[in-house]
């Protein structure tokens, strides 16, 4: 079918940031994740954990806690402020100072009326949640040591606070402490070190569960203020606790990287006499687990090793499916690498800067499987630091390689690149139209003459680019009136069409000639993870988070026959079971029937002219085909040609000389840059 020259790139030093806090919203099935760099991400738990929304972080904003109040998300951090997020536009809504020094924890009550924060100065501050803001209400009795953890009782009348060496129960009405429970320090040398109660959980039956730096999970009675039971879980710290919604299961995350599950089961069969029993231990992390959350069917954990691990609880799953497999999310479900197709340039998006690289050149030809001699090594042309404290939200490089644009939450900057031989210089385009103040997504037209900037309320602004500068052309608005932010843009090769996809799963197609909405693709239940417009047929090819694919003819405003065939016959089981979303859709100009896709673990070329595989055919058949003769291959090949040579792929792009750029970020390389984990004695070492 064909040979490709592949530039294997491993010098993109992307480092995912460690996970600091998790908050699960059971009503919307959304998981909010806060990272060390201050970014907040929203994952859709029932849509294959697709990363729907990313709110980039800022320098110096250490988030310590996350809390949902209804569908509103709040965070608090060591900078002493409480932040509410605008999830529709994926940005910070406001931040107010709690005036209590660094905040260690934030939690909302079940009624959705109040937020409590635990501060360094020893106060628990209550905030009333209003329609559009939060309002400071009062302090509970001030304590001598910092408040490290908080948990509301379901009734909303009591609150448990974990501190240094003790746990306090407050009456919310009076603000006074009801009970004071002392946590034991460790024995031996650690006796001099104070015991930090890292996490508390207040159960509806009045039991308080605490996890502390001595490695104990303790159960307390809030009526008497006495210890019921204690479990020694680890030699290190128990950093996080989470209870399931029906309070029959509890998970604890430790700094050894283990998650320990406790279950509330009756000790004698048939009797109602239930106790918390330690049942399972999972070890999927190499480093400290800073946050755990038990969702309906799985335990989600995250920590210093920056991966989000979804460990399904098999006792709560009835059928084996893609959802019952262990899922580890290492990389964002957004593109961080952009290629200037016509000039061989790559743009790497880091949180605080951009890097522009020129690809190397090879000499001679090689047989498949071999490496070619690298005549010219890749070269770093540009290192562009972001102005201000905000991290980059999105960026793009034009296909001709002449324009670079990026946007943070507060500003958008456009640069023009001058490349004559070895001298690289950039000029910032100073007078940008006012509409270009910030963008959710950016995209250049294929002839590099226009920039499309996705803005608030799902609108797209069009700006024309020329030597003299840039000029606002117009705004494209969807008919539906959805306000969700756009996370994907795709422009057609001929400059006629533009497609946009937003978090409401809507895909709008605009006619760029008339600057009017052309049509809307029927809304599908899963999010669009990647899309592209075919250069010759002008069909929009879409990949969804549940691994489905659709091809929609823009001109005919309907799904193509091939797409209908795919839907009718269904996709192969192995294709559906892949656990990372496709992140790019490309087309091979030399062979219009080829669609090139990739996810983290594979590169796939779909040949639309070939028959689709059914569940009986061998899906990964490249090795078989390789061993067959040319004639035999025809009878054995099917539409999905999967190449698994590459691993940990961040980006695949087809550039104009028919060669592929594959940007890999090997997890081993990531692991070597992580801080050293807690040293553990291993057997026979």
């Amino acid at each position, binding site marked *: 079918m064909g040979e*490709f020259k592949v530039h294997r790139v491993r010098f993109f030093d992307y480092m995912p940031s460690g996970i600091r806090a998790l908050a699960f919203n059971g009503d919307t099935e959304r998981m909010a994740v806060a990272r060390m760099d201050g970014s907040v991400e929203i994952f859709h738990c029932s849509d294959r954990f697709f990363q729907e929304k990313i709110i980039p972080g800022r320098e110096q904003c250490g988030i310590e806690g996350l809390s949902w109040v209804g569908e509103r998300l709040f965070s608090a951090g060591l900078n002493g402020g409480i932040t509410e997020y605008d999830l529709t536009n994926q940005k910070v809504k406001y931040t107010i100072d709690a005036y209590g020094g660094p905040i260690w924890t934030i939690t909302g009550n079940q009624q959705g009326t109040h937020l409590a924060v635990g501060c360094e100065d020893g106060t628990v501050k209550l905030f009333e949640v209003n329609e559009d803001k939060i309002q400071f209400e009062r302090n509970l009795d001030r304590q001598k040591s910092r408040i490290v953890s908080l948990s509301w009782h379901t009734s909303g009348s009591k609150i448990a606070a974990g501190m240094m060496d003790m746990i306090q129960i407050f009456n919310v009405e009076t603000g006074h402490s009801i009970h004071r429970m002392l946590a034991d320090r460790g024995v031996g040398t650690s006796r001099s070190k104070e015991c930090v109660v890292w996490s508390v959980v207040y159960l509806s039956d009045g039991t308080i569960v605490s996890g502390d730096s001595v490695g104990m999970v303790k159960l307390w009675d809030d009526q008497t203020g006495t210890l019921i039971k204690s479990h020694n879980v680890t030699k290190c710290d128990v950093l996080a606790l989470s209870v399931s919604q029906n309070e029959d299961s509890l998970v604890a995350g430790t700094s050894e990287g283990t998650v320990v599950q406790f279950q509330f089961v009756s000790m004698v069969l048939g009797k109602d006499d239930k106790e918390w029993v330690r049942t399972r231990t999972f070890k999927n992390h190499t480093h400290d687990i800073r946050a755990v959350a038990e969702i309906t069917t799985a335990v989600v954990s995250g920590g210093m090793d920056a991966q989000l691990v979804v460990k399904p609880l098999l006792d709560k799953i009835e059928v084996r499916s893609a959802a019952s497999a262990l899922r580890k999310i290492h990389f964002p479900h957004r593109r961080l690498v952009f290629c200037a197709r016509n000039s061989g340039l790559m743009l790497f998006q880091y949180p605080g800067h951009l890097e522009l690289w020129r690809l190397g050149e090879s000499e001679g030809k090689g047989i498949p499987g071999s490496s070619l001699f690298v005549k010219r090594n890749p070269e770093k042309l540009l290192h562009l630091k972001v102005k201000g404290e905000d991290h980059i939200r999105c960026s793009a490089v034009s296909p001709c390689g002449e324009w670079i644009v990026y946007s943070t939450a507060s500003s958008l900057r456009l640069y023009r690149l001058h490349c004559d031989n070895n001298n690289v210089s950039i000029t910032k385009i100073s007078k940008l139209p006012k509409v270009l103040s910030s963008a959710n997504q950016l995209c250049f037209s294929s002839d590099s003459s226009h920039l499309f900037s996705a803005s608030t309320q799902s609108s797209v602004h069009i700006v024309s680019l020329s030597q003299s500068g840039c000029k606002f052309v117009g705004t494209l608005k969807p008919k539906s009136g959805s306000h969700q932010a756009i996370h994907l843009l795709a422009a057609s090769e001929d400059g006629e069409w533009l497609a946009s996809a937003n978090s409401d799963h809507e895909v709008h197609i605009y006619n760029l000639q008339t600057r009017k909405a052309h049509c809307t693709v029927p809304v599908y239940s899963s999010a669009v993870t990647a899309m592209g417009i075919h250069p010759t047929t002008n069909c929009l090819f879409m990949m969804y988070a549940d691994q489905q694919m659709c091809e929609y003819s823009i001109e005919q405003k309907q799904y193509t026959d091939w797409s209908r065939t795919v839907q009718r016959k269904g996709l192969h089981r192995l294709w559906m079971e892949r656990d990372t979303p496709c992140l790019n859709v490309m087309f091979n100009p030399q062979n219009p029937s080829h669609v090139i896709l990739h996810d983290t673990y594979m590169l796939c070329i779909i040949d639309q002219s070939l028959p689709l595989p059914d569940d009986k055919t061998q899906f990964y058949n490249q090795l078989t085909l390789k061993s067959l003769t040319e004639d035999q291959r025809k009878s054995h090949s099917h539409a999905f040609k999967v190449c698994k040579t590459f691993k940990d792929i961040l980006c695949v792009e087809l550039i104009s000389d028919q060669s592929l750029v594959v940007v890999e970020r090997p997890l081993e390389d990531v692991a070597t840059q992580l801080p050293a984990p807690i040293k553990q004695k291993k057997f026979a070492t």
Partner: protein
Amino acid sequence: MATLYEGYTLCGVGPVQNSSNIGILGVEQGGDIDHVLVTDTSRSITVYKVKGVTSYAINTFLKQGQIISCPAVFNTQSQEYVVVTDDRVVRVWKEDDVNLEKAFKATVSADVLKVLSATDSEPVVLFCCGAVRFLDSLLASPQQPMEDVLTEDEIIRWSTIVKAEHQLVILFSTEQRGEHCLYVQRFNPNTLVKHRFETEPGLSAPISFSATCRGSNIHLLYLYLNGSVYESVLPFRSSSTGAEGVQALSRSLCLSLPLGEEKLMSGAAVVLDEAHVAVVGFPHPSAGACKDYLCIWNTHFQTLQASKEMAGRIYSQLWCYSGKLYVPHGKMLSVIPFDCQKSSLAAAMGKQKQTSQSESKSCRFVTSWTSQSCTDVTQTTEIKSRMSTRNVSDLSIIPTSAVEDVQAEVGEFIRRTPQADLQLAAGRVALELVSRSQTDANFYPQCAFLLLLETRYLCYSVCPELLSLAMVKKDFHLCQIAFQIFSDIPEAVTCACLKTILSTPDLEMETVNLDMDSVIFMKELTQAHSRSDEEGGQLNGFCHPALESDVSDTPSNKLQRDPFALDMSCPVGLHKGALLNEVLQTAYSDRSLLPHLKDLTVPQVIVFLQYLRFLYLKYSHDAHKQIRALRTPSISQIIDWVCLLLDAHFTVLAVAPEAKRLVFDLHKFVRSQVKLYAELGKIEGSLQVLKSSKQSEDFGMYAIQVIELF
């Protein structure tokens, strides 16, 4: 083992003028490997051709009134003889010059101590003052002044030349007011390093030296009158220039010779090879102290390897050239050929180390035994003499008393003697006992022997006759213990014992009292066979009654019926098997064992092979089943013996009809093993490919590759 062959007298030793320990001036290597140059104190220099037991001589005499100052040497480069007369006259002559007066002579400016010559290098002249000159440069200007290296009253006592890698080193020891030093003169660059001998109170000067070159070091061995033989190692090339002053000579004790009661006056030692030292003038450890012996000692194992009585007065002189020892004694100079075989023990120790840990028990005892004697450096002469006096009193009853008395006395003796002394003493007692048993047919103190063996201080070399005595007396119990304890049994003796064991009928053997552990092992082994058969029947759930009865009646029937069934009955009795197991576990070296194995008769070989095959089958079947026994032959030992037996007797076995089935079975087995290894080789190959394909992944940060999709 080392052997001293029958020697003969080369020449007489002239009348000794004084009380010095010098019988003749010297024996030096001649122009050929079998030529020696004997310099007599009485003005004659004789070249002897020593070959076999004959010798011929060419004499060269000096004129009356001339005195030979040092032994004549042969300059192999110029094919000339060199001697110094009257302290200062260097004379050089060819072989056909009989008259020395006509030969070339030159008078030098200082007194010459000695001319030293090594093969294929120029002779070196050592002066009394310590100066050193090459002969050529000296003869070019004979009157050149000599520098004084030594102080006035410092006298050179001994000197030698060592050559290796075309580099010469002169060693000489000096005495000055009771202090003894060693000088090391190296050439190119000329350096002279002075070492001081360690002195201990009561220890006089070394009486004999011997230097050899091994690797890049000079090993200097020296003997003291108290019987200690020390070794010092000097580097061949020294980095020091001698400017650092006098260095103490580090030494290690490598041998402690036993002493008699008489005060020794003279003695000499010479290094034969890495492990052997010939010593003259010291008493034989078990013979009386009154006689003088030439002994060969193994320094590694501290054992006496060979000895020969030397009549007459012993001098502090001993030479060794090309496999012959030259010993002046009484009024003659004897030539004694010797042979130091690479000891089978050394090879055996290597062999034994391979066997499993449970079997290394006897081996461990040997090592501790040697290390103990090595640590006995602090042992003083005092203890030695005390010990030897008491020994005599103990031994004195052996030649006369009854068996019971002797046994009681030996028991008492072992209990009384301190551990450190027991090592030598036990050997002496054993030798005495054996010698009496050999002469007196009614005397056989088995208990005493067992007691001595239990001390674990005996080994074959200490008392070689013990094992053959036990074989003659058919004392298999003693044999077994000896096999367990001795790790240095020569292969010939092992084979003789094997032959005796195989030829003894089983019936006679069963009455013998043997070590329980080994018998239990054999019982387990044979029972395991029947038990596994029963289990097999039960497991299968069905066992044909007729077949079962057949099996129990005649195992051979089963064989005929089912050629693939394994013949699992033990071909020898329990006790014979136990003894054979001990033989299997002895140390040996293949090359030495093979010729002796040929002594076995064909029926013996077949029985032994059948037994080995039985063992092997047992082992391969019950590999998971560990029979608890202290000493069991390992599977590799069994296989080694099978191979050796087949090697030794293959042609006979191939034609012997009764061996056909056995050989066929073994062949079948080997074929299957070869097949298995071939398959394993294939697996290894494919695993290798897997590994290399994994490795090719790494390409660094950037690469341009070609992929192909089908």
